[in-house]
């Protein structure tokens, strides 16, 4: 009986043919060894614990959280203070004139 092709052999496992064919049995054994070797070498590989900590440190270093500047608030305060100061200076001067104008109208 002719040997099945590799795909059928792998799918059928050590079936009737492989049980009696030394060549196919050797092939299946070799395949099992190949799988076992790669599993032993690569299965369970995971990131080292230092990876996440390293990333956090780099992010903190390369992208520092910017503290909000107080400059706009200060400028805003100065602006409004100037407006009120100006009003405080000008109003006493112009208020009598305004009152006189209103009185003459009435």
């Amino acid at each position: 009986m002719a040997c099945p092709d590799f795909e059928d052999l792998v799918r059928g496992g050590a079936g009737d043919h492989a049980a009696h064919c030394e060549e196919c049995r050797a092939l299946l054994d070799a395949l099992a060894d190949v799988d076992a070797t790669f599993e032993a070498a690569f299965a369970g590989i995971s990131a080292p614990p230092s990876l996440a900590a390293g990333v956090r440190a780099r992010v903190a270093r390369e992208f520092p959280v910017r503290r909000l500047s107080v400059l706009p608030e200060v400028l805003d305060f100065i602006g409004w203070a100037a407006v009120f100061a100006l009003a405080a200076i000008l109003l006493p001067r112009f208020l009598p004139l305004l009152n006189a104008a209103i009185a003459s109208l009435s």
Partner: protein
Amino acid sequence: MEEEFERIVREYRDKIFRLAYSMLGDRGAAEEAAQDALVRVWKGLAGFRAESSLSTWIYSITRNACLTALARGRLRTASLEDAAPRREVERRATADWFAAGPPDAAALLDRLPAKYRQVVALFYMQEKSYDEVASMLGLPVGTVKTYLFRARKSLAEELASERVRKGVA
């Protein structure tokens, strides 16, 4: 955004590291490239528009980070792709790679064409998930299956025939 990034780090760090390791073949270099990739993810996360899936985007960033690492020549050890010529000498020196019992993984990988090596390594790292490997490498699942089938077949045939020829059980 920080919470989202923390979730990404938790969920993807192993996969990113494995992908980097399968491309670079060196743990230290893989860790460095994985860090680069995650920092790039942080940088781009605010602008990520979900035109592709998050995992596709992350894997693509990781592959690019690894290619950058390879191009910069930061790697002191050879990558899996160019390991073959270097190890050719070692292979000649270490006879009987085909001897009974599991052979050496590096020796097996060296016997494969370059394009199969990364797929094979990643397949076993990712608990034999074709879909995951395809997604990580940006390849169709069918291509991953074909590469794996051909790689395993070629190695098994070579190993079996060497053993028969040398009379190793």
